[in-house]
C-alpha cells in the first residue's frame, strides 16, 4: 500500500516582509527618544530669503493638478455609467491598500518591485518630511526639536538614500541593461521622470549638507551624525575649507534649484504617466471583486441600440479611467501569448491606442454632446474598431487573463477587448470564417465542432450502463462538447467516468440532452447567442433538479461557476480535478499502481489563473506513485496559455508563430515524457504542437489529462 505523499509547499508571499525595515526604523526612533538630549533642533527656513516662494509653487501645483483632473474627468465622463463600483467597499479598500499602496503586483517582477518600493517610499516619506517642515515653520505646532528632531533627520536622510538607490536601479535598467519591455513605447517623459527625481534627491542632499556645514558640523557633531548621508557629504566638503559665506551662497542657489525642480517634477504628474501615483490605487479600488473569468452581462440585450463597444463613448467611464492608469511598463505584453508568438496583439499598445483615440476624439464628443445632446457617435471618421484597433488584434486575444494578472495598475484588458469583439460580431458581423463556422454550428447544432462524426453518446460505448441524471443523484457529470464530440478527448471522458464510479460518487450524465453552455459564443463576442444558450441550459438544469456539477472542461467550469449566477443559475461547480483530488484525500480513490513516468504540468488559464485552482491537479499528480513532476519555467499564475482560449480553438492563427508551438516547446524543454493538463483544448493544442516542435516520433512527449494519468494509477496501466 502506497502512502499518498503531500504536495511540496509552494513559497508563500509574505506581505509583511517589506515592512520589516519600518519596524526597525521605529525602534531607532524609540532609541533616540530614550537617549538623546532634548535641546537638539534647528532653525526652520534656514538661510531661505523667500520661504513663501514654496507656497507660490504649491499653489501653482494645486491649480495645475486641478486643471489636469478636470481635463481627465471630462474625458472619463464620455463613457457610459457603470454600477456596482461602490459595492463591497471594505474589499475594495483592501484592494486599494494591498494592490495600490503595498503594490503587490509590482513585486511580481522582483527587481522592479524593489526599485519601485524604494522610489515610492522615498517620495512618500520625503513628502511627509517636507510637510513637517512646513507645519513647524508656519503653524503653532512646534515639534521638530529634541530626540524627535534627530530621528526626523535620520529617516529623512535614510529615505533620500533609499530613493537614490531606486533611481539608480531604474537608471541601470533603462540605460545599461538589456531589458526590453520598458522600451516598447519609450517617450521623453520617461527620461524626465527618472533623471528629474534623481536630481531632486541629489540637490536635497547638497542642501542639507550645506546647512549642516554651517550649523551643526562643528557646533553639534553628535546631532549632525543623525543625518548620516548629509553628514558624510558635509564632512567630505569640509576638507575644501570653504568660507561660511561661500557655503551659504551655495545653499541659497541649491535651495532654489531644489524647490523649483521638486515642484516641476510634481507637475509632471499632470502631464505624464506619473499620474499613476493617484490613478493606480484608485483603479485598485475599482478593480472587480468577482472572478476575472467572468465577462459582463449585457442587460436587456434586445433593447440596446448598439451591441458591445464600437465607439469610445460606448465604454464605461471606469474603462476609460483605467486607460489613464497605464504606465506603459509592458508587463501585459511581455506575458501575452499572442504577443509572445508574434501575433498582432500587444495589450499595452492596445490600451495606449485607446487612450490616444480618447484624447483625439474626446473633446469633440464632449462639445457635440453639449450642443446636440445625442451620443455623438458620428463625430469621428476614424473607426475605433477597425482603424484604431484592428480586427485581427481583437481576434488574437486568448482571454487568458495573463495581462490582467500582471498589470501593476489593475487594468482589465480582457473585458475591454471582448466588448469590442461584441461590436464586431453582433453589430458588424465581421468574424474570421472559421470562427463564424463555429458560431453557426453552435446556433444550428448546439456545439462548436463542425463536421464531427461523433454523437454525444459515442464515448459511452463499452462502458456498460452509464447512469443518466434524473435528479436523484448527487452530481451531474457534465461531459461537454469536446469531451463527447472530439475523438482525442473521449479517453479523458471515459477516464473521469471510471474514476467517478470507483470513488463511489452518486452521479449521472445528460447524454443526448447536453448542449453547449455558451462559453465559445461569449468569448467570441456573441453575447446574444450566449444568453440564449445559457438561459436554455439553466432551465434544463432547474427542471432536472441539478445542484452540483462536475465538469470535464475548465471552460464549462468557469461558465457554470462564474457566469450562470448572472442568469440566476446557482450551482455548486467542481472541475474534475477538484473532485478527484478530494476523493483521493478522503481515501475513496486509491492510486494502487505505480506509473513510472516523468511529467510536466500545464495550468489551463480557465482553471488556474482565472479560477485559482492550482493545487488540486498537482495534488493528484503528487499522489500518483512514480509520476515525477518537473514544472515548466512559466507555471502557476504565470503559466502560458496553450493558444486555444478566447475562441481561438476555432480560428486560424495570424502571425509569426503559433502559440501552441511556443508552449509545446516550453513543455518539451522540461524533458518530461508527458505533459499533463486538465482541459480538452489544451490537450488538443499539445497534440498538434508537440509533433511540430519535436518532429521525431522517437521519445516524443505525449499530452494527457490529469484524469488519464490517474486512471492508470487507480486501475493499472492499459486496463481500458
Amino acid at each position: 500500500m502506497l502512502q499518498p505523499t503531500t504536495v511540496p509547499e509552494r513559497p508563500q508571499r509574505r506581505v509583511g516582509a517589506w515592512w520589516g525595515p519600518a519596524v526597525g526604523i521605529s525602534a531607532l526612533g524609540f532609541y533616540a527618544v530614550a537617549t538623546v538630549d532634548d535641546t537638539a533642533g534647528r532653525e526652520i527656513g534656514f538661510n531661505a530669503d523667500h520661504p513663501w516662494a514654496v507656497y507660490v509653487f504649491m499653489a501653482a501645483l494645486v491649480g495645475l493638478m486641478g486643471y489636469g483632473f478636470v481635463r481627465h474627468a471630462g474625458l472619463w465622463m464620455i463613457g457610459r455609467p457603470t454600477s456596482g463600483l461602490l459595492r463591497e467597499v471594505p474589499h475594495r479598500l483592501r484592494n486599494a491598500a494591498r494592490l495600490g499602496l503595498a503594490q503587490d503586483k509590482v513585486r511580481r517582477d522582483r527587481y522592479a518591485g524593489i526599485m519601485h518600493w524604494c522610489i515610492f517610499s522615498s517620495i512618500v516619506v520625503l513628502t511627509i518630511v517636507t510637510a513637517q517642515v512646513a507645519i513647524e515653520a508656519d503653524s503653532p505646532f512646534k515639534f521638530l526639536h529634541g530626540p524627535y528632531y534627530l530621528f526626523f533627520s535620520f529617516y529623512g536622510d535614510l529615505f533620500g538614500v533609499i530613493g537614490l538607490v531606486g533611481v539608480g536601479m531604474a537608471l541601470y535598467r533603462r540605460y545599461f541593461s538589456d531589458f526590453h519591455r520598458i522600451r516598447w513605447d519609450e517617450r521623453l517623459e520617461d527620461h524626465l521622470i527618472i533623471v528629474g527625481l534623481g536630481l531632486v534627491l541629489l540637490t536635497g542632499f547638497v542642501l542639507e549638507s550645506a546647512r549642516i556645514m554651517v550649523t551643526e558640523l562643528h557646533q553639534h557633531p553628535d546631532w549632525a551624525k543623525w543625518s548620516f548621508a548629509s553628514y558624510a557629504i558635509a564632512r567630505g566638503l569640509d576638507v575644501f575649507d570653504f568660507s561660511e559665506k561661500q557655503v551659504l551662497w551655495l545653499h541659497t542657489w541649491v535651495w532654489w534649484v531644489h524647490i523649483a525642480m521638486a515642484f516641476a517634477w510634481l507637475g509632471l504628474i499632470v502631464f505624464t504617466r506619473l499620474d499613476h501615483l493617484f490613478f493606480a490605487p484608485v483603479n485598485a479600488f475599482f478593480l472587480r471583486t468577482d472572478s476575472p473569468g467572468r465577462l459582463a452581462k449585457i442587460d436587456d440585450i434586445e433593447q440596446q441600440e448598439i451591441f458591445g463597444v464600437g465607439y469610445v463613448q460606448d465604454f464605461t467611464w471606469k474603462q476609460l479611467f483605467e486607460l489613464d492608469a497605464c504606465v506603459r511598463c509592458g508587463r501585459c505584453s511581455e506575458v501575452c501569448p499572442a504577443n509572445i508568438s508574434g501575433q498582432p496583439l500587444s495589450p499595452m499598445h492596445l490600451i495606449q491606442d485607446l487612450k490616444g483615440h480618447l484624447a483625439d476624439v474626446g473633446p469633440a464628443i464632449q462639445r457635440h454632446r453639449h450642443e446636440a445632446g445625442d451620443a455623438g457617435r458620428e463625430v469621428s471618421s476614424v473607426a475605433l474598431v477597425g482603424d484604431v484597433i484592428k480586427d485581427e488584434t481583437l481576434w488574437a486575444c486568448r482571454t487568458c487573463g495573463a495581462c490582467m494578472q500582471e498589470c501593476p495598475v489593475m487594468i482589465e484588458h480582457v473585458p475591454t477587448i471582448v466588448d469590442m469583439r461584441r461590436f464586431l460580431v453582433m453589430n458588424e458581423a465581421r468574424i474570421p470564417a472559421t470562427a463564424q463556422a463555429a458560431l453557426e454550428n453552435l446556433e444550428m447544432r448546439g456545439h462548436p465542432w463542425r463536421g464531427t462524426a461523433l454523437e454525444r453518446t459515442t464515448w459511452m460505448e463499452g462502458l456498460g450502463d452509464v447512469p443518466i441524471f434524473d435528479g436523484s443523484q448527487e452530481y451531474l457529470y457534465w461531459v461537454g462538447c469536446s469531451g463527447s464530440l472530439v475523438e482525442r478527448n473521449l479517453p479523458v471522458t471515459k477516464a473521469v467516468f471510471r474514476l467517478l464510479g470507483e470513488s463511489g460518487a452518486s452521479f449521472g450524465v445528460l447524454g443526448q440532452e447536453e448542449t453547449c453552455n455558451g462559453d465559445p459564443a461569449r468569448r467570441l463576442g456573441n453575447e446574444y447567442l450566449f444568453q440564449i444558450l445559457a438561459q436554455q441550459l439553466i432551465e434544463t438544469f432547474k427542471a432536472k433538479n441539478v445542484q452540483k456539477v462536475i465538469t470535464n472542461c475548465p471552460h464549462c467550469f468557469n461558465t457554470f461557476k462564474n457566469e450562470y449566477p448572472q442568469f440566476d443559475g446557482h450551482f455548486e461547480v467542481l472541475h474534475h480535478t477538484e473532485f478527484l483530488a478530494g476523493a483521493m484525500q478522503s481515501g475513496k480513490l486509491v492510486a494502487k499502481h505505480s506509473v513510472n513516468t516523468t511529467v510536466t504540468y500545464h495550468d489551463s488559464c480557465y482553471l488556474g489563473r482565472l479560477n485559482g485552482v492550482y493545487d488540486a491537479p498537482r495534488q493528484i499528480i503528487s499522489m500518483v506513485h512514480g509520476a515525477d513532476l518537473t514544472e515548466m519555467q512559466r507555471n502557476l499564475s504565470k503559466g502560458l496559455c496553450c493558444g486555444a482560449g478566447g475562441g481561438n480553438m476555432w480560428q486560424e492563427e495570424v502571425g509569426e508563430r503559433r502559440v501552441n508551438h511556443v508552449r509545446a516547446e516550453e513543455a518539451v524543454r522540461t524533458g518530461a515524457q508527458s505533459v499533463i493538463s486538465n482541459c480538452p483544448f489544451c490537450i488538443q493544442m499539445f497534440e498538434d504542437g508537440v509533433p511540430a516542435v519535436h518532429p521525431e516520433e522517437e521519445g516524443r512527449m505525449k499530452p494527457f489529462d490529469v484524469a488519464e494519468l490517474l486512471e492508470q494509477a487507480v486501475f493499472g496501466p492499459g486496463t481500458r
Partner: protein
Amino acid sequence: MHIVVCAKQIPDPETPPSAFKIDAATNKVVPAQGIAPVLSQFDAIAAEAALRIKEANAGSKVTVISMGAESAQAAIKQVLAMGADEGVLLNDPAFEDGDSHTTATVLAAAIKKLGDVDAVFCGRQAADWDMGQVGLLVAEDLGWPAAIIAKGVTTGAAGLQITRVLEDGFESLEAPLPAVVTVSNEFGEPRYPKLPQIMAAAKKTVTNWKVGDLGLDPGAVGKAGSRLKLEKLFIPEKGGKVELMEGDTPQAQAAALVARLMADKIL
C-alpha cells in the same frame, strides 16, 4: 429588382453517420434526437448572392420562399436575418411527399402570385436529396431562361451576368430578366447575420400560402402529383472490413501495403 430566394429546410447534413437512420416502412429519414433541421447550405449561399445584388441595386427587394413544414419558418427567419425583406411559407399537407416536379409547381405558382419577380435564386441542389433540378423545373414552369451552378452572379446590361462552374473550368454567360439562377458553394460563404437584423427578422410576419391560395389542384401536387416514385430508401453497406497494415515502423506498414496492392494487381 425583386429577387425570390427558394430556401429549403432539410435534416442536418452533418448528422453523424451513426445517428443517421431510415424507417424502412415509410422510406423516410428518422429525425435524429437532438439534431434540429437546418437551412440547406446551398440555399443560404443563394440568399447571399441575392442580397449582394440587392445591396448593389438600390430599391431592390428579396423575398424568401420555402415549401415545407411549419418548422421551415426557422429557415425563412434565417434568410430574413441575413437581410431579406419578406418571407413566404408554403405549408399545406397537400404539398407533402412530392417530387421535384411538384415542388417546382408549387414554388412557381407562388412566384406567379407574387407577380413582380425579376429573378429566382436557388441553391444548386438541396443537401438532402441532392437532385439539383428544382431550379430548372421552376424555370421551365415559368418559361424563363436559367443558368445553373453559378459561382458568380451580378446585374449587367443584358440582365444577369453569370459565371457558372463546369467540370473543367468556368463559363461566363448573360441571361435576360426574368431568369432563374442556381448558386453553388464556389460563390462563397453566406454572411453572418447582424444582431439588429436578427431582431428585426424575429418581428417580421411570414406569409403562409396554402394550396388554395395558389390556385393549385391538390391532385397535381404532393404525393398525388408526383411522377418520380420513391421505391426504397436505404443505408448502403459500407465496404468490407478494413485490413489494417501491421508493422512496428511506418516502413513495415508501407511495405505491407505495397505487397497487398501488388498482389491485387492494382499497382
